[in-house]
């Protein structure tokens, strides 16, 4: 009797504990995803309306040059951010992997930026990149009078400052992932390759890096979704400016939904962003969940 009651509690308690979270997740996450998707097919403007207009909002969205600009910025930012983070992270991880002294301290230093919020990163870099108080001023004060570094106020270059700040923040994290991957490789494999005559470069390019494919994939997925959702960093660093030159989809969505009273277009852009994330995530999850892990 006691045993069966105990079993009953064991059975119900976990379900009871997670159920509020589950309800909240269902309502506020999936519920609002569905609601937003629905709104994107209505003619909502300031307030939600429930009159269906088909794909009109999507057509208007893709006719809007600001959206196209935001998408293009996302491509530029995404490619550079992911690419540079991966390369920098990998190089740092390989260097750290050479059994250097004070590795723990260095690793912590590189990892710290990840602990900051993007708002802090954005604000700090806004000052650093500001020509009148930051790096440019500093170098000029050192005596190099003609030095110019004003990307942040140059509409053509401002998007690259977002890349710089993003890389600064995320590459330490990527390094940590790669380092864990490198450490997971049996050292006798490296020894075997050395005996086979491979130099250090060949050991890394022919064996270690190729066998870290899952690690690369994880890093890529994480960086990609940081890139697509990038909102706070851009807001803090450039506020989308100068002009609209550093607009990204998240900012576009926020402004159209909540500032310009075009809820329908905003919802449509949100759905497009969701689709982009899914397009990356689904194949990943599919391949990860389908193939059983084998070492």
């Amino acid at each position, binding site marked *: 009797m006691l045993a069966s009651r105990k079993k009953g509690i064991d059975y119900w308690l976990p379900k009871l504990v997670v159920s509020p979270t589950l309800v909240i997740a269902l309502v506020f996450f999936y519920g609002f995803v569905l609601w937003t998707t629905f709104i994107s097919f209505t003619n909502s403007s300031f307030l939600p309306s429930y009159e269906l207009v088909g794909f009109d909002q999507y057509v208007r969205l893709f006719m809007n040059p600001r959206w196209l600009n935001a998408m293009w910025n996302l491509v530029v930012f995404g490619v550079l951010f992911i690419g540079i983070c991966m390369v920098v992270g990998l190089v740092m991880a390989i260097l750290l992997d050479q059994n250097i002294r004070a590795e723990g301290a260095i690793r912590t230093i590189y990892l710290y930026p990840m602990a900051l919020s993007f708002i802090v990163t954005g604000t700090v870099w806004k000052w650093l990149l500001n020509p009148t108080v930051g790096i440019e001023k500093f170098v000029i004060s050192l005596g190099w009078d003609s030095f110019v570094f004003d990307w942040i106020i140059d509409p053509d270059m401002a998007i690259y400052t977002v890349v710089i700040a993003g890389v600064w923040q995320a590459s330490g994290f990527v390094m940590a992932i790669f380092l864990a991957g490198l450490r997971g490789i*049996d050292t*006798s*494999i490296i*020894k*075997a*390759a*050395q*005996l*086979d*005559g*491979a*130099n250090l470069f*060949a050991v890394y390019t*022919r*064996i270690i890096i*190729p*066998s870290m*494919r899952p690690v690369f994939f994880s890093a890529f997925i994480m960086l990609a979704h940081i890139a697509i959702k990038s909102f706070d960093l851009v807001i803090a660093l450039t506020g989308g400016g100068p002009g609209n030159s550093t607009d990204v989809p998240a900012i576009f969505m926020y402004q159209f939904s909540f500032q310009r009273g075009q809820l329908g277009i905003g919802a449509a852009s949100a759905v497009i962003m969701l689709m982009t994330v899914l397009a990356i995530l689904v194949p990943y999850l599919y391949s990860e969940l389908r193939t059983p892990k*084998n*070492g």
Partner: protein
Amino acid sequence: MAELKIDNVYKSFGEEHILKGISLDVTDGEFIILVGPSGCGKSTLLNCIAGLEDVTTGDILLGDTNVTYEAPKDRDIAMVFQSYALYPNMNVRKNIAFGLEIRKMPKAEIAEEVARVAKLLQIEPLLDRKPSQLSGGQRQRVAMGRALARRPKIYLFDEPLSNLDAKLRVEMRTEMKKLHQRLGTTIVYVTHDQIEAMTLADRIAVMKGGIVQQFGTPQEVYDDPANMFVAGFMGSPSMNFLRCEVTKQEKDYAVQIESQGTIFQLPVDPKQADLSSYVGKTVVLGIRPEQITHVMPHLVAEQYITQVPVKIEVTEPTGADTLILARINDQECECRVHPQEAGKVGESMELLFNMSKAVFFDEQTEARL
């Protein structure tokens, strides 16, 4: 092809002293087997020879060159690792070909070589698989293949056959021997298998605690062990060690044993040991199970053979022979008899103790007398 000279090599990991003055002279083309209990430093020694671990002090010479400070890739050594160390991202074919590609062998020759090795090791059907899709024994053969595809100055094998089934192991053992006869390359080979050690080796190095206890031909190590450790380690079932007192006979010496309440004097062959200074003291008699047999009439009269009745405590049939556990001097003693001659447990049985190959050790130092 080269001779290998290991000169007084010490290796420590921090405060942990693993190799304590290893010296081995291996002549060109010799097949050397390293044996010793787990953790005695065999793999560490191989790693030092390959250059994968730096020696703390001492020198390693390959041919005429001192390679102590050379990088592994410049030493031209091929090694099979205890943990296989296959490249996880490459299939079997690529694994075997990698070392050849790095050394810039032409493509056609590589393919030929891979095919040859795959046939030798019976891994042809596996060539397109990844290491993660192989069993332990298959991985081990791929690891062998990777080494055998090359023609290095020296092969180092770290328990290369330990994971194979009994039949394949015997086949591979024969292949190893043929291969060595054909190529004549110097080989250093670690194994825990007594038969492998005895059949393959030109010379065996028995290690314990980072020290080479004895380095000699299989027969020397077997018949003429340097100390009690070597005597007990080599041979299966292992040598019996019986503590017994030395007595003086008319002109020779004997050791005294007791079985079922009766005292027997086993004569000591003066060629085997001089026990003059041990009269009245205790020594350890080392006698192999095959030196204690059932009664064979043509042997009874020989000088160093004594007939002793014993009580059978346990019998262990192995097929070819039956092992009998008897109690001598209140110590256990294993004897090897013909299955048909073996008595039943609890019965008494007459056995012949052949002392012509018996060895003696000091009770305290365990050194050979």
